[in-house]
Structure formats: structure tokens, C-alpha cells
């Protein structure tokens, strides 16, 4: 096995008969070149969205991140830290500095600042759009570092190439998708690399770097809890399987102390870093590793017999304290209502939890459990290769390879519970597939290469590679050998090595190997085609600009959203309040620069329910609610004319449900006819008179003559009606956004006059 890997990596580096150092230098240069190309590929495969559409920020949350970044670049870091945003959640506002993961914004802000310092005048938006592709290249390089630390350079390069284009990761990191995951995946892989590096070297330098990388991860994404549970799990596994070493201690203990202190510095995490159950595992293992360290120290000091007596003594009499400790811990955890775990974490531990108790988590599509085609879509042929990678990691098992296997196993389980965690699985799948592919290639190419060599030349080749081997870059295996093998005569070891290598050099038949290589190449090509297709077709739509094919093969662009936001920006007062359903809150504040009532940070359910209630109420009541919130404009998203399915009428039942959850006079059955949601002539009167229906279908029948809704595929129930409390001020080209203004309160002059008469 070892042999296969070495030759595999020299295979990358060139012929085996070139002199040692020259070959290594050539290999390094070639590897660097390949890494450059991988970086370019990772960047450019994510540009489909820019080429097919344009350089815009995508979807919803990225608009918020963009707005925060803009503020950061304009006002500076201190202002950003203390930012109280009064443009959202009116009249409550939101403390932005303390409620966001600042990693992404600070990263992009720094990039913009550096570029400007070099007099490269890019706009903040451009920097934000390209942050994700740039970090994908970094992530690919981090994967190279991680994998080569585990199984050598050849596997590293393969894994990096696979990660550069794995669809699951592309889906979250195309140009314009400016969200936390864009930088977090890089941070995740890099943290793992530094952990494995520390594990292999036992260097405190890398341990410190590891804590810093962990800090960056905490800044970037809530998914950092995965790291702070996975690493303790691995440490525990190592201790239990008898792999405790001082390197393990150095890799773990500083990370817990420094990492926790640093994590507590991030405002959004704060004391959660020591107080929530997600972090308890790391502290428990911290205690255990110290016990294990003590046991090892005592074992070294005492003779085996004394040690065995001591252990028996301690176990017999000392079991009570740990038992008491565990009991206290269990009682503490059990005392909190959710056992100290957040709903999302609990639904990972008990997969049926969310569907039973938290419908709001269960209802989100990215929290659904995936089916098998999801794996094929998101990691494609890697799904076939991973088992081979797992087995390769067990032959032989080292600390670092066991870590990679553990990472894969946990992430594949979690991805089975929630489809969005496929993103965490993707790097693990790439690392293991990289290992599997590189080993398979190594065996097959070696079989062809050494096919005709005689026994003597074979031995010579073995000899040269054996000498090479002793200076090979893979410190991990060298360390392991050092650790385990008792010191023997050097000559004897070399002889034995050569014998071992010779046995392993035995290859497979040439023609079969050639076919095997061909099949692997076909498989790889299929992967490339699939990834390019997924990047181009499936994951590049910005959802703010829509396109459709015209019958004559042309492209029709629907740019209604930006049209509406621009209208709001240019035609309404600076301080006017705009109400809409929460989905469009981030976009309104970012693009129209107007104050909104609710947005995608759904922290206040009552406030959302108020807007939901207004949308579900008759016109007058709705007007009163909006008036009480100081709202001047209301807009709805309407897809009935062009057949855009995710419009407000389709989301309307959620508004009713959420509204009814707080204000009981809104009752879902009132909007349903026999349990069916309909807007045609069979619809209930409540439905036909509610504000959402009226704002969506006002003057609709005039537009096409029939009032035919192309999403619901039916004629609407009530076609001609007037609005008394709202007036239409703007409707976009395809009617996708309709903006209404609240009419001012009724003139009270006459009432005042009549009062005076009485006085």
C-alpha cells in the first residue's frame, strides 16, 4: 500500500529513474502548476451566473450581507460593531453588530480595502459577487493540504481537483451567492488541515494556528459547532482505541482553551461558547484527555506489574468521583427544557424530532431528509468512490486517516437527516474519493509501467524508491514508523523494507490495467460533464432576474424585482415605510433603501404575525393595521400573469397560519373551501375579500380580459372590484410586483366643524 502511494506521487513527479532531488523539485513545480490550474478552474466554473445573467448579488440573505458590507466599508469597523439598524423591523430596529456572524463581511470588506489601497477601484458589489469563487479556490488548496497530510501529494491533488467542481459546494458558492457558507467551507477545511498537521507534527505552532483558524470559522458560520464536536469525538476515539500520544494532546488541549476563549469574543456566540450543550462534549473530552495523559505518565514511571496494581486500585476505589461527576452533568443537562440543545441540533441527534415538534424547521425545504438522487446530483460519482477511500484509510490506519474517516461518517449521517448538510459532506467525500482515485491510478499505472522489468531491474527500482522514501514528504507515516518500530539495525530494516516493497510491486496484467484506467478516466469525464452542467443549469440562477426561453429560441428577461425596487428608491420619500411579506425585506432595504416592517431575519414572530394578519384581513382592518405601523406603501409579488409560481398568493396560507398563531380571529379554515385552497368562484368570501387577494388581482381582469391566473390555472373568483383604502401607484412590466399606497386618513374637517357648532 505504502508503495503504491509513493509511486503514485512520483508518478505525478515524473520517471522513477531520474535522480532523487531533481525529481522532487520537478514534482513540486508540477504540483504547484496543477494547483494553480485547479484554483483557476474552481474560480471560473462559478462564473456561469455572471456570464448567463449578470454580475448581481443573488437571492435574499446575500442582499443583507451586501448591505452590511457596504456599511462596513463606509463607516468602518467600530461603527459596524455598534450598528443599530433603524431601517428594518420598524419600529423596533435591529442590533446588527451583535447578531451577525461577521466573518464574511469583514473578509469582503478587507478585500475591498486592500484593492482600494492598491488603487484598484472596484465597487463593493463586485467584491461581494466574487468573494465566493475566490474562496472556492482557497478551499480547493486547503483540501490539497489536508489530503496530502493524510495520504500524500497525489491524493491531495486529486482531492483538490474534485473539490474544485463538486456540485454541492458550487450550489452555495457561485458568483453572486454572497452568503456565510462561501467562506465557511474554506475555514472548515483549513481548520481540519491544521488539526491534522498538528496531529502529525506535534508542533505547538500549528496548534496555535489551528485555534486561529477555528476562530475564523466561528466568525463565519454557525456550523462551527460541527468542528467543536467532531474534533473531540476524534480525540476520544483515539484514546479509546489506544492511540493516545503527546501529539494528540498538543493538537487538542490548546484548541479547546484558545478556541473557546476566541469564540467567546464573537458577539453572536458570546457565553454560548461555555454554556450550551453543543460545546459540552469538548470540555468533557478535555477532562478525559488529561486523565489519559496522567495514566500514560504513570504507566511510564511504574513497572508493568505495579501499574496494573495501581490501575486495579484506582478503578476499584476511584470510580465514585467520575460517576458523581457524570451524574451532576446529566442532571444539569436534563434540567433545561430542551436538554440544553437547540432545536436544530436535536433534530440531528434524533432525526424524527423536528417533524414531531418543530413544524417551522420541518417545513423548510433545505431541512428535508434527502433521497438517493440528491446524492447523485450533489456529489455524483464520488458516491461510488468513497467506500474505496474509506478502506484505503484503514490500510494502514493512522491518526490522520482515522480523522478523515470519522469526518466522513458523521457528515454523511448528518446529510442523511438534512439535505443542506450535504455541503459539509462534500469536502469529506472529495478527500476520500481523491484518496481512492489516486490509489487506483497508482496501482494501475504501476502495473503498466513495471510490466516488462526483470527481477533485477525491479529490485533496483525498488532500491531507488526506498532511498527516496526515507526523505519523502509524508511525515505522517514516517512519524508513525518511528513511534512504533523499536530501534533495530538500520541495515536489517532496509532489507526488510525492500523485501516488502518487492512483494508489493507485483502488478496486474497490462491490458486489463489499461482498460481499468480507461474506465476511471470515463468516470472522471462524466463527473466533469455533470459538474459543469450542474453549475451552468441548476445552480446559477440569481432568482432576482428571471429568464425564459421564447418560442423562437431567444431569451426573455424578467427584471421586475429590480424595476420595482428602483421605483421605490426614486419615487418615495427617504423615510417612508414599506410593508411586504418578510421574504422581500432584505432586498427592499438593500436595493430600495427604504425602511421595512419585517425581513428575512425572522427574530420577532409577533411582528411577522401582524403583517400576516394585515394581509389576511379585509381592506379596512388591514389599512388600520398598516396605518398603526406608519406604513406608506405596500407591495405584493404576483405571478398570475406570467406564471411565476413562488408568488405571494402561493405563500398566503403561511401568512394566515402565522397570523392566526398570534391573533386567533384569523382562522385558516375560513380561507379554505372544504379543505382546499382556491381563488376561483368557489373561494370563500373571506378569501375573496382579504387584502392579499385584492392587491394581487386588482384590475387583473382588465389586463387579459378573462382574469385567468396562469399559476393556479383557473379564472379568478372576483374580477371587478374597487379599492377604498389603497391606491395602485406602480405595477411592473410583467405585473410581478404591484405597489400600492395607503390612502391618507379621511378628512376630519366636517366632523370638527360640527363639533364646534355644539360648543
Amino acid at each position, binding site marked *: 500500500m505504502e508503495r503504491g502511494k509513493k509511486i503514485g506521487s512520483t508518478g505525478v513527479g515524473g520517471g522513477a529513474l531520474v535522480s532523487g532531488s531533481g525529481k522532487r523539485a520537478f514534482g513540486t513545480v508540477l504540483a504547484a502548476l496543477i494547483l494553480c490550474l485547479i484554483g483557476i478552474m474552481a474560480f471560473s466554473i462559478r462564473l456561469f451566473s455572471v456570464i448567463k445573467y449578470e454580475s448581481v448579488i443573488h437571492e435574499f440573505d446575500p442582499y443583507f450581507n451586501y448591505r452590511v458590507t457596504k456599511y462596513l466599508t463606509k463607516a468602518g469597523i467600530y461603527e459596524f460593531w455598534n450598528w443599530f439598524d433603524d431601517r428594518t423591523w420598524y419600529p423596533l430596529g435591529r442590533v446588527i453588530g451583535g447578531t451577525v456572524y461577521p466573518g464574511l463581511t469583514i473578509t469582503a470588506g478587507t478585500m475591498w480595502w486592500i484593492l482600494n489601497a492598491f488603487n484598484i477601484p472596484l465597487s463593493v458589489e463586485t467584491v461581494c459577487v466574487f468573494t465566493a469563487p475566490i474562496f472556492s479556490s482557497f478551499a480547493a488548496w486547503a483540501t490539497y493540504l489536508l489530503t496530502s497530510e493524510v495520504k500524500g501529494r497525489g491524493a491531495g491533488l486529486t482531492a483538490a481537483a474534485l473539490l474544485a467542481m463538486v456540485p454541492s459546494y458550487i450550489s452555495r458558492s457561485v458568483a453572486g451567492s454572497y452568503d456565510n457558507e462561501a467562506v465557511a467551507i474554506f475555514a472548515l477545511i483549513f481548520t481540519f488541515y491544521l488539526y491534522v498537521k498538528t496531529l502529525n507534527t506535534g508542533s505547538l505552532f500549528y496548534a496555535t494556528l489551528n485555534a486561529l483558524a477555528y476562530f475564523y470559522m466561528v466568525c463565519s458560520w454557525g456550523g462551527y459547532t460541527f468542528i467543536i464536536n467532531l474534533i473531540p469525538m476524534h480525540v476520544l476515539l483515539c484514546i479509546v482505541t489506544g492511540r493516545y500520544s503527546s501529539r494528540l494532546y498538543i493538537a487538542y488541549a490548546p484548541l479547546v482553551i484558545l478556541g473557546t476563549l476566541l469564540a467567546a469574543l464573537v458577539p453572536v456566540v458570546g457565553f454560548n461558547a461555555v454554556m450550551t450543550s453543543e460545546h459540552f462534549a469538548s470540555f468533557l473530552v478535555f477532562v478525559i484527555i488529561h486523565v489519559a495523559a496522567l495514566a500514560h505518565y504513570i504507566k511510564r514511571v511504574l513497572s508493568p506489574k505495579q501499574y496494573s496494581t495501581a490501575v486495579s486500585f484506582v478503578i476499584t476505589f476511584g470510580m465514585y468521583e467520575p460517576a458523581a461527576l457524570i451524574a451532576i452533568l446529566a442532571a444539569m443537562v436534563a434540567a433545561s427544557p430542551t436538554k440544553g440543545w437547540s432545536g436544530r441540533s436535536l433534530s440531528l441527534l434524533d432525526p424524527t424530532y423536528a417533524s414531531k415538534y418543530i413544524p417551522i424547521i420541518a417545513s423548510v425545504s433545505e431541512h428535508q431528509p434527502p*433521497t438517493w438522487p440528491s446524492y*447523485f446530483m450533489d456529489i455524483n460519482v464520488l458516491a461510488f*468512490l468513497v467506500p474505496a477511500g474509506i478502506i484505503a484509510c484503514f490500510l494502514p490506519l493512522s491518526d490522520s486517516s482515522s480523522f478523515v474517516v470519522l469526518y466522513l461518517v458523521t457528515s454523511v449521517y448528518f446529510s442523511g437527516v438534512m439535505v443542506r448538510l450535504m455541503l459539509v459532506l462534500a469536502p469529506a467525500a472529495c478527500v476520500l474519493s481523491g484518496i481512492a482515485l489516486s490509489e487506483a491510478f497508482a496501482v494501475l499505472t504501476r502495473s503498466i509501467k513495471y510490466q516488462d522489468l526483470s527481477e533485477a531491474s525491479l529490485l533496483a527500482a525498488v532500491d531507488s524508491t526506498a532511498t527516496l522514501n526515507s526523505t519523502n514528504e509524508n511525515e505522517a507515516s514516517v512519524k508513525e514508523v518511528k513511534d512504533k518500530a523499536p530501534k533495530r539495525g538500520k541495515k536489517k530494516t532496509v532489507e526488510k523494507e525492500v523485501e516488502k516493497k518487492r512483494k508489493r510491486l507485483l502488478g496486474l496484467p497490462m491490458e486489463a490495467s489499461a482498460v481499468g484506467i480507461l474506465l476511471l478516466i470515463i468516470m472522471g469525464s462524466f463527473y466533469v460533464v455533470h459538474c459543469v452542467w450542474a453549475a451552468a443549469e441548476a445552480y446559477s440562477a440569481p432568482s432576482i432576474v428571471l429568464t425564459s426561453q421564447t418560442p423562437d429560441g431567444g431569451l426573455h428577461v424578467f427584471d421586475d424585482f429590480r424595476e420595482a425596487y428602483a421605483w421605490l428608491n426614486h419615487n418615495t420619500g427617504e423615510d417612508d415605510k414599506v410593508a411586504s411579506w418578510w421574504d422581500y425585506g432584505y432586498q427592499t432595504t438593500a436595493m430600495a433603501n427604504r425602511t421595512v416592517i419585517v425581513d428575512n431575519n425572522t427574530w420577532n414572530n409577533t411582528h411577522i404575525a401582524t403583517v400576516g394578519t394585515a394581509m389576511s384581513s379585509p381592506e379596512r382592518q388591514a389599512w388600520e393595521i398598516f396605518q398603526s405601523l406608519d406604513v406608506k406603501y405596500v407591495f405584493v409579488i404576483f405571478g398570475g400573469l406570467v406564471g411565476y409560481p413562488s408568488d405571494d398568493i402561493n405563500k398566503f396560507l403561511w401568512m394566515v397560519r402565522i397570523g392566526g398563531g398570534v391573533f386567533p380571529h384569523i382562522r385558516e379554515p375560513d380561507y379554505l373551501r372544504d379543505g382546499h385552497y382556491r381563488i376561483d368562484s368557489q373561494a370563500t368570501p373571506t378569501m375573496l375579500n382579504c387584502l392579499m387577494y385584492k392587491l394581487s388581482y386588482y384590475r387583473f381582469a382588465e389586463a387579459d380580459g378573462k382574469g385567468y391566473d396562469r399559476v393556479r390555472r383557473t379564472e379568478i373568483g372576483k374580477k371587478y372590484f374597487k379599492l377604498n383604502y389603497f391606491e395602485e401607484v406602480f405595477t411592473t412590466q410583467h405585473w410581478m410586483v404591484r405597489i400600492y399606497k395607503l390612502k391618507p386618513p379621511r378628512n376630519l374637517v366636517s366632523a370638527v366643524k360640527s363639533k364646534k357648532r355644539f360648543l
Partner: protein
Amino acid sequence: MGRGCAIALALVLFFLAIAIGEDDRVSDLLRRQAGSKDGIIELDDTGIRHLAASANRPYALLVFFDAHHLRERSGLKLDELRGEFSLLARSYIKNNAGGSGESKIFFCALEFQRAQASFAMFGVNALPHARFLAPGSGPLNASESMMELNDMVRSAEGMAAYVESKIRHKVGAIDRPPLVSRNQLLLVAAAAIVAAPYVLKKLLIEGKDTPFHNSKLWCVGALLVYFFSVAGGMHNIIRKMPLFMPDRNDPSKIVAFYQGSGMQLGAEGFAVGFLYTVVGLVVAFITHVLVRIKNKTTHRAILLVGMGVCFLAVRWVVALDHWKTGYEIHGYLPRGWL
């Protein structure tokens, strides 16, 4: 005057009598409720008529329609629903004991064999079914409001939300017994404490031959978890998917593969999961085991078979995925090449 007084007295006595009658029924219900094991009052035809018929009863009734002979049908999940219903009843009784909500609602069950007339009266011809009888409502009929036992209202929490919206009174926290009871937990803890010294001793002193040190076991475990996950096993558990499904058009046939990417059947998932895993296993076998065998003919034969299996498995999955999701994956070759 005297006549007026007499009428007033008669009226007072009349209402008093009614009130006492009501009180009787409430205390009767409370007694039966206290007597039942699961907080649900079992009723029959006469019972329900007696309790529910009067026009001005002060309490609401939530009636669960049950049928012993349908309990075996797993598709209906009557057992499970009845369990949730009883959970709701017990939680309500416990949370409202002695309070104003004590006799606001009673939870009853009607068993088909003993209450066929009531089933007919309410027009119940399919189970599961539950009815809410508001306080004071008049004669019983099929138009009493029905509690939809759909996905949202299958759990005690969902039913509680429904009840709260109907009676305008808090049900309170649902007191769900933990999966493992206290005694079982103590037993497990005791076993762990007894076993701990042995395990620790094995690990610390001998430190070699425990199952923990067997890397083959870990390897097999990892592969199993992988197989289970990519097969969509969690999907099957969370969604409670069956392994097969009878064909809608022809019930004698079974459907093992479901078209449409949002859902999968159990057997389908495991079949594809097996295909995902088997390729990796073959590749691993070729790279790590086959090379150690010296016989060239064995090499050729196994390689041929192995590569054939891999090729077919990948092709099969690709074809299945194409069929299931309907995606048209294509390359972007230059026009001149086509």
C-alpha cells in the same frame, strides 16, 4: 303578588334543578374520568346521548372514534393516535386539576362495537375520526365540528393547539413520558458503572485485543453508516416510507421505484445504496487485495468481472437517476464537433 312570587320561586327551583342536573353530570364525568386509566372516558350509545344531548351543557366534549377490529390495520395508525389522544387528555387533566378549566372539556372515546348508533348519528364512516362538541350546542348530528386528523394534528401537541383554539383555554405543556423510563435509565447507569472497571482495565492495561482495537470492525461500521445514509435510510425513517407500494392501477403488482425526486421507497433506496457502495468495494478490492495475488489468470478474470460490475452499476444508477428526476445532463461540446 303572591302569584308572582310563586312563579319566581318555581322558576328559581326549575333552574336550580337543571343546574343540579348539570352538576350531577359534571361530577359523574369527573368521577369516570378519575376512574379511567388513560384520562379518556369510554362511552357507549346511551352514555353519549345522556351526556351530550342536553341543549345547555356547560362542558365541551372531544370524542375520539375508535374500533378494536381496525386496530391491526397499520395504515390507520389508530393505536398511535389513541395514545396521543390519551396523552393530551392526561396532560389537560393534570395541568388543569382544581382550576377553572377542570370541567371545561372532557375527552371521550366511542368504540364501534358498543356505539354503532352513535357512529351512524355522527355520520362517521371512515377512521381515524374525532369530533368536537361545543358546550351548549343542541341535538347531536353529523354537522358537529370535526377535528381533521391530518399530519399537523396527529401529535398530542397539534391536538392541543386545536383544543385551545376551540375552548379558549390553555391545555398546558404536554407531559410526554420519556422514551426510557426512570427505572430503565437507572438500570442502564448501574450496568455501566459495574461494567466500567472491566472495560477501563481492558483498555488501560491490556490495551490491545478489545473490539475497540479491531480496525476491521470500525471499517465495516463506517461502510455500513455510509451505505445507510446514501441509501436515504434517514428519509425512510423520518417519512416512515414503506419498502414497497401496491400499484395504483393494478393492486396485485407492487411498485418498488417511485418516479419523482422528492420521495423514495425503502427498497429503492437500499438498492441504489447498494450500487453506490459496491463499486467502491470492488475498486478497493482491486487496489488492495488483488495485487497481492500472484496468479495472472485470476487477475484477468477478477478484473474483468470487477470492472464489468462497476461499469454496469454506474450505468444503472445514471439511468435510474435520469428516469427518476427527469434531468437531461449534457456536455457543452463545440458546435463543430456535433
